[in-house]
């Protein structure tokens, strides 16, 4: 028997509202199956399970707000008997009715259950709370798990408590019961959702700017070779199979990270963990406002066509508000592309616990010197915002140059 906890939904999401179960007790599930749908301020997220097993019991109620890390499903491991009584067959002791909780405690911690990012979750089991905040929360009778933490290292501050109390008072005012936010319940909810998303973005960005000593670099990358190659490829393709420059840029970043582990990983509790694979968080603006940066998984290992398909699918699902928990939780570096309507360059704010963000400005033609001659060149300005605790400008510069070099050989991407 083991429990499946609500996985991390990204650094700026510490809770979700259970919308729907996708499994029933007795159902066999496989790693990666969607077991529930949880609403966050940004999107409805399909929660994927991280281990095979059989659903024993659903532990959470629909409509209820659940903090990340809360057990939501009890499962039997593959091959485990239906009865929960013999906790561990080899050591079963008839005289002590092995209680379910004892069985849970005795069971080896199912490591596979935890998404890699879950272990790095910004909301550890023991929530740091400032003494003043704890006292004030007690006075107000406000449970601390209802308070969104914005302090250092994810701690709850006095101001967080005051804000949560004010929000709770407002929420309770119109009716007696606590309103349950359904995603399509009209304009009022949409406004709340936008306010909630703004709050979540504010908390993550505030934490980033407070804790991460950013440094910024930029480099103008000539794009003629890449665009000529794309044009030639796209000419032969129907509109449904065409590649966008964004696919080339993302693939180049993914490949460049391979030799620069100091920009691809997570900084958690004072320790940097470089990531062996590269999951690129793609910053996508939502039509109703706000921003989300779900992951494209391991695209360095994928063909460009696959990268394009996955990017298109991710953008489409983002706009439709349907994402998977793994996408929300595990980017190891973020790419933001303000795109063809955008500005020349972007200097982004790192999304904690990541340590780097690559930005691309607008593709545009500019004067350029090539072989001693002035020419018109399509260029893009690439920038790097990186964490000085983990890397220095010299390595960051080499990383940006690597991206530039890779884009000069588009056929290799």
């Amino acid at each position, binding site marked *: 028997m083991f429990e499946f906890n609500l996985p991390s939904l990204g650094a700026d999401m510490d809770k979700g509202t259970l919308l729907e179960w996708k499994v029933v007790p007795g159902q066999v599930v496989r790693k990666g199956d969607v077991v529930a749908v949880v609403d966050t301020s940004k999107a409805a997220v399909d929660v994927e399970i991280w281990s095979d097993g059989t659903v024993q019991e659903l532990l959470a109620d629909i409509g209820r707000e659940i903090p990340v890390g809360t057990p939501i499903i009890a499962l039997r491991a593959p091959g485990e008997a239906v009865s929960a009584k013999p906790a561990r067959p080899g050591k079963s002791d008839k005289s002590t009715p092995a209680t379910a909780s004892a069985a849970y405690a005795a069971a080896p911690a199912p490591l596979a259950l935890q998404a890699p990012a879950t272990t790095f979750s910004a909301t550890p089991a023991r929530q740091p709370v400032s003494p003043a905040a704890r006292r004030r929360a007690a006075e107000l009778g406000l449970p601390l798990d209802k308070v969104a933490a914005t302090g250092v290292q994810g701690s709850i501050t006095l101001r967080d408590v005051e804000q949560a109390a004010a929000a709770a008072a407002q929420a309770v005012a119109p009716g007696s019961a606590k309103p349950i936010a359904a995603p399509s319940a009209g304009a009022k909810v949409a406004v709340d959702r936008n306010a909630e998303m703004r709050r979540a973005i504010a908390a993550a960005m505030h934490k980033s700017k407070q804790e991460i000593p950013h440094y910024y670099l930029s480099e103008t990358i000539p794009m003629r070779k890449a665009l000529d190659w794309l*044009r030639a490829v*796209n*000419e032969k393709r*129907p*509109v*449904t199979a*065409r590649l*966008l*420059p*964004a696919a080339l840029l993302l693939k180049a970043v993914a490949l460049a990270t391979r030799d620069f582990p100091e920009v691809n990983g997570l900084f958690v509790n004072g320790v940097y963990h470089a990531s062996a694979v590269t999951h690129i968080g793609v910053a996508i*603006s939502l*039509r*109703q406002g706000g921003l989300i940066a779900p992951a494209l998984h391991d695209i360095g290992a994928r063909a460009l066509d696959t990268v394009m398909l996955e*990017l*298109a699918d991710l*953008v*489409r699902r983002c706009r439709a508000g349907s994402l998977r928990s793994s996408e929300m939780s595990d980017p190891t570096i973020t790419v933001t592309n303000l*795109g*063809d*309507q955008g500005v020349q360059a972007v200097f982004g704010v790192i999304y904690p616990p990541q340590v780097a963000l690559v930005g691309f400005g607008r593709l545009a033609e500019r004067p350029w010197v090539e072989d001693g001659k002035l020419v018109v060149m399509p260029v893009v300005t690439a920038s790097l915002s990186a964490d000085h605790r983990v890397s220095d400008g010299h390595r960051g510069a080499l990383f940006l140059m690597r991206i530039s070099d890779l884009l000069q050989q588009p056929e290799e991407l």
Partner: protein
Amino acid sequence: MKQQEIRAGVIAAIKAIAPEVEEDELVSGQPLRAQVDLDSMDWLNVLIELHQRFGIDIPEVDYARLDTLDAIVSYLSGRLG
């Protein structure tokens, strides 16, 4: 196919990608992508929608001509013959 029908099809394609768009608010002669805030991915998806609705594959070299709603409608009616 009549211009009116083509226009309706183009607007439906745009609304499929950007559902918040109100037809009345679109200025036919003004650059479309700035009005509707379509990025390159959205634009590609609009073209895919047009492909599905009209059976016309618009080559990349023609993208630059399709800057306004009027231009798209006249381009399509030209291609549809």
